[in-house]
């Protein structure tokens, strides 16, 4: 019976999501110019739902202090209050409001993940494209170096680095960005390899353009689609990395709320059938899925398949 009920709620949730996606798409089409409206009209419901979720997250992140009923680290009551009018999702062991922390968590987690991923992409793409453009020896050397970095298990690599340089947000961001940029490098290089052999790059070279111009103006705009898709995925992996690190005691600094540590801190409750840790985990999962829905749509558009 319980299973049937669960199934029922899952179906309801899916339908509600799709309906939300539909409404959001309709709204987007209404408010945007004719060009963009045409694009949005092609969006499947999943993608518009994804977009909606992403926008909600971004809003949460930006306006966290306005939305959250209580402060991030404010201790309000005894530990583990149940869900109530006052505390929507109850309180955590210290008596902090879980709902507020979830919202602040969006800011910290999404913010840091975004920063990290952006950094990784700036490093990774520029070096990757540079390697593809120069080819030959430089390419080999860079690729080997990256290979070396990739051959070290990322968790252990970050463990080493964080132990050496200490755990603070900055090192965390830089270390994860470094690890991630190796993956980005590979993709950027692969994509760029296909572009650098096109005639317009040859034409630009023959014109006497310098390398930076070639990378930024000629190659990068054309490598954007696959890179953007990768951005979505990498972005999600950064959360997971941060939460894995906080599992090992190396995550974000308290009292910053981040979803990874929120899952970690309450994870053992799940073995007693308590769903509290599911909420931040669900927040991560929802964003991942949302981002990937949008990415799928973008890739689909780029692939040229029409069915």
């Amino acid at each position, binding site marked *: 019976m319980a299973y049937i009920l669960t199934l029922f709620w899952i179906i309801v949730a899916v339908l509600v999501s799709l309906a939300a996606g539909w409404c959001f798409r309709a709204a987007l089409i209404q408010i945007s110019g004719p060009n963009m409206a045409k694009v949005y009209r092609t969006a499947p419901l999943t993608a518009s739902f994804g977009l909606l979720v992403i926008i909600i997250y971004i809003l949460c992140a930006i306006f966290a202090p306005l939305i959250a009923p209580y402060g991030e680290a404010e201790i309000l009551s005894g530990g583990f209050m149940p869900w109530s009018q006052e505390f929507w999702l109850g309180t955590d062991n210290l008596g902090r409001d879980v709902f507020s922390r979830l919202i602040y968590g969006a800011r910290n987690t999404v913010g840091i993940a975004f920063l990290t991923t952006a950094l990784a992409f700036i490093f990774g793409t520029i070096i990757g494209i540079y390697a593809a453009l120069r080819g030959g020896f430089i390419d080999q050397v860079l690729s080997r170096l990256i290979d070396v970095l990739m051959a070290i298990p990322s968790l252990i690599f970050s463990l080493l680095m964080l132990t050496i340089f200490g755990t603070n947000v900055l090192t965390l961001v830089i270390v994860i960005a470094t690890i991630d940029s190796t993956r980005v490098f590979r993709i950027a290089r692969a994509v760029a390899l296909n572009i650098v052999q096109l005639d317009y790059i040859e034409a630009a*070279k023959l014109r006497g353009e310098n390398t930076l111009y070639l990378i930024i103006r000629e190659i990068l705009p054309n490598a954007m689609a696959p890179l953007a898709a990768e951005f979505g995925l990498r972005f999600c992996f950064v959360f997971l990395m941060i939460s894995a690190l906080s599992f090992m005691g190396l995550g974000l600094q308290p009292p910053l709320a981040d979803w990874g540590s929120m899952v970690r801190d309450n994870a053992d409750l799940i073995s007693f059938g308590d769903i509290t840790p599911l909420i931040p985990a669900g927040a991560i999962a929802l964003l991942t899925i949302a981002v990937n829905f949008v990415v799928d749509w973008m890739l689909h558009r780029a692939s040229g398949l029409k069915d």
Partner: protein
Amino acid sequence: MKPAKSSSPKTKANTKAKNTAKADAKSDDILLQMRNIHIKGKSDETWIDIINGVDLELHRGEVLGLIGESGAGKSTLGLAAMGFCRDGCKITEGSISFDGMDLMQLDKNALRELRGRRIAYVAQSAAASFNPSHKLLDQFCEAPLIHNVMSRNKASKYAVDLYNRMNLPFPDVFGLRYPHEVSGGQLQRAMTAMALSCRPDLIIFDEPTTALDVTTQIEVLAAIKDIVKEFNTAAIYISHDLAVVAQMADRIKVLLKGDEVEQAPTEVMLKSPTEDYTKSLWAVREYTRKEQPAVKNETPIISIKGVTAGYHSSVDVLRDVSFDIHKRRTVAVVGESGSGKSTTARVVTGLLPPRIGTVEYQGEALPSSYQARSREQLRHIQMIYQMADTALNPKLRIRDLIARPARMYLGLTGKALDDRVRDLLRMIEMEPDQFIDRLPSELSGGQKQRIGIARAIAAEPTMIICDEVTSALDQLVAEGILKLLDRLQSELDLSYMFITHDLATVRAIADEVVVMKDGLVVEQGIKSKMFKPPHHPYTELLLGSVPEMDPKWLDKLLDSRGKDNLGDAAIAKMNDEGIS
């Protein structure tokens, strides 16, 4: 002429009766009948018309030629004859009846049964249409096996038989090769053989020779013609080259933007086309420019001296190539694919430093690598590419594309730059206000090529290298480009190095011709001289391979040369005889 609404099997006799009434004596053996076909395609979520109500009728054993410029809907119509629509297209109206069956009513499985077995397809690019992962023979046998027409054993034997007839080398083991292991011409013949594997009643040939060299083209044309006759297969032959269609088809249908322009038996169509559009197509082939007077002993703009070059560690691709390009003159470089034409251009631009030899600019040696050349040196030699699609950065607007060289080399900025861009656009006959802010993807092929030209002249060069600039274009559009180049040459005192494999183009615009083969210059000289015998045998072969507007041309050629002395085979024979 609206078709009967009801086209269920029951009314078959009925339809037939109607047809009999309409058509001539041969009407009994009508194989394919398409009536009032409307096809729409989806682009950016809106449905646009691709075919607007075309009728098509084909008898058993008959070959119908379908011609029209790119995008006219030839392929779409050809595929519709198989009851097939590409992704994103749909047949909105009309009826297709094949051998009495209504293809519009058949379900997926029944259609699938038909395809490959009774109607086969030969695609434009065999190289892309063969699955690179499987051997030719396996791909040959696939259709007979899935349609249960023959056993694998029998199919293999049949393949060898067909390969033999198609004059393919070592027919016994030919099928054991992978697609990338055979030449383009052979691949195209193998594809034709594959289409025949189930002995279909109808074959659709979709531009089977467009991607090939003239020399190779003949080979394939001969094979197709032969086989179609032999098996008495009906065929739709799609092409944009009138001369080619003339060789193959009994009847020709001309399409323009999804509408039928006219249709007539081949002879009639060639002699007396009625529509203007058709006439203009015919006229293109006649365009020729006046030959420029020969120059006296002045220093050439570019002088290629004893250049030997190659890629990486491989053999020399160019061997001791030398020729000059003088001011205001067009030097056409011709030769089959792989003969080293583009490589020569790469040496001149400095992309490929030669192993031996130099390139001189106005008597003064240029650094061999472009990286070592000064901006001024780079500015003087500009290049226009064959594929306008890949030559223009799809993410930059026209304004930026054209402005870049002007800003770089001439230091123009702001208003001056904008004016210059507009001037250039006007020069290439494109209205600035309309085009300046577009992206390349918003232009047609010919327009893109014009932008490429504008970009080259924005640098105010003295010489432009044109690498197959018209090969990817329709004849009408190509003619426009040639005229434009011609005009710019006289206005701006340009020299051209014009690379092409199309002799008709050479005839149209060259002053001098350089014939290349296997990295060697086999013959060079003034155009008028080059088009008059006696020739070097290779030049002769090239010239002789250009199809003419005479439906009998191919037959005559085959008679005179023999089936075994075409294309690759002829070249191989020439090599054996040591003529180079």
